[in-house]
């Protein structure tokens, strides 16, 4: 049976990675179609010459960083607070926000913002996108940090308390540093989820908040493919590198 499993694993991993590898390979193809013409960086150059694309990337990065900072802060505090004293309502609603289909989250946030705008004369913009991203990231952060908290266990903190620290000191000087790997993992997760989001962002984005996924989607719908291949390859390489680096740091 071990041989069957190994053979299956080869097929399985090929299936998982083939699409992305194909995109990357064909991003160097000078032809628009799947017939190989010759090696070229044309499509990568096209990315640099597209101001809409560059602005969208800037927006995506900015939104991802700000949303990650906020959701990691709130989420870590929440995970710690829940660990000390559970709250079924909060936990339940966090789980619920996790499984809510993205389109429902998107339209409900849109409804919230449009309703609020009746009173304040504001508009959709980068801040609404950030708020939306925080809304769905918090649950991820709480889960990851909670898992890390369970691994650490209460013993470290109890030892600190026994040695005369008060609750805040125990948290800040003992638990928090021990939590750091978990917080980093949660930050990475929140960053990725935020950078990648299309459905929710497209619903609450405003005039100044075109993000990279929105541009990619528009291109995919319009059929102009090869530039997307290049963008996809870049995104894959970037996040792949990020993950591998974080793994090295964690193992070290």
């Amino acid at each position, binding site marked *: 049976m071990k041989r069957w499993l190994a053979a299956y694993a080869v097929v399985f991993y090929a299936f998982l990675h083939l699409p992305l590898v194909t995109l990357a390979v064909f991003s160097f193809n000078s032809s628009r*179609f799947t017939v190989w013409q010759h090696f070229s960086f044309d499509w990568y150059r096209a990315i640099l010459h597209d101001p809409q694309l560059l602005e969208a990337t800037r927006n995506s990065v900015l939104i991802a960083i700000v949303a990650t900072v906020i959701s990691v802060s709130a989420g870590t505090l929440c995970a710690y607070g829940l660990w000390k004293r559970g709250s079924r309502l909060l936990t339940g609603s966090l789980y619920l926000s996790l499984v809510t289909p993205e389109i429902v989250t998107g339209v409900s946030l849109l409804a919230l913002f449009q309703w609020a705008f009746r009173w304040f004369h504001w508009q959709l913009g980068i801040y609404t996108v950030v708020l939306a991203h925080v809304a769905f990231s918090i649950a991820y952060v709480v889960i990851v940090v909670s898992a890390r908290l369970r691994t650490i266990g209460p013993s470290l903190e109890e030892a600190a308390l026994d040695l005369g620290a008060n609750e805040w000191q125990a948290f800040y000087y003992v638990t928090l540093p021990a939590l750091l790997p978990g917080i980093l993992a949660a930050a990475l997760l929140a960053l990725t989820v935020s950078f990648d989001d299309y459905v929710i962002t497209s619903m609450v984005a405003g005039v100044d908040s075109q993000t990279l996924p929105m541009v990619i989607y528009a291109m995919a719908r319009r*059929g102009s493919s090869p530039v997307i291949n290049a963008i996809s390859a870049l995104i894959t390489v970037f996040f792949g590198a990020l993950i591998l680096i974080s793994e090295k740091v964690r193992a070290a």
Partner: protein
Amino acid sequence: MNRRVFLLGAAGLASCRRDTRPHLNVYNWSAYVAPDTIPRFESEFGVRVRYATYESNEEMLAKVFTGNSGWDVVFPTHNRIQPMRDYGLLAPFQHQWLPNLGNLAAQFRAPAWDPSLQYSVPYMWSSTGIVYSRAAALAPTRWADLWDPRLKGRLTMLDDPEDMLGACLKKLGLSFSSTNPSDLHRAEQEAIAQKPLLRAYLNAEVRDQLVAGDVLVAQLWSTTAQQAIDADPRLKFIFPAEGFPFYCDCAVVLRESHRQKLAHQFLDYLLRPQVSAAIAEATRTATANGAAHALLPPDTRDNPTLYPPPEIIARGEWPRPMPLAAQKLRDRIWTEIKSA
């Protein structure tokens, strides 16, 4: 350590986006300006233009109807102008800021949907017809040909309720903008009967597939079809015998805009003959600007797909605005067709 770095980085990024030039927010159809149109406007007027694109009127209207979308200039199709006006979304023009209005072609100077050009400036016009490849099983000449079983799997229709239902209505010999419920239900039956033959409902993305040969026959707008023909001259575009629609996309200024004068200046800029001609050449669309039309090279100026001769224009119809009840019925029928 990491949180502080994040915060610093975010602050750094936020600060480097400061731009003190006045802004103009323009929301247009995709592939409707030349590469240098916007940059030239930006440098001449010293402003920054935020330019985004959409693929359908509904996509644009969904953002705009709220009355505080942030857009200054949008480009609705002509039969959406009256409802937008009725709903108070459009700002009336100050004609003293639009000296180039006289450049419009004769037929667009007093169009049916806005006779005094009070709210809209005709921009580009097009029609919907059939584009087909020489490799197709038959050469279509009418909408009814698109129901031929020999086209199975290589045929697409537009992912647009107005055009798709319109084609079915014309096939039945009815009016393109019919509001009669029984007419619409008969059209629905036609659409459902055709669905098994279709590869998909696609808009502009079918252009690449036509060129690649994936799709052999498609219902498509004349301008998009011309772009496909440019890439593959073996493709042909025809105006169906039973009738077809003409559309004119018009530039409007939204009432919510705080930059009325700048918006007018942008519209006036688009009306300049050289600018409009450059756009028409680059995007292969049909301009409503008569002075620009005269500047085009002869083979573009007389291109029958983009600028059809008068006898063809006589066979087409300009869709009228849809009353609310009919619009709701059409929306529902569209959902039923898509999920059949």
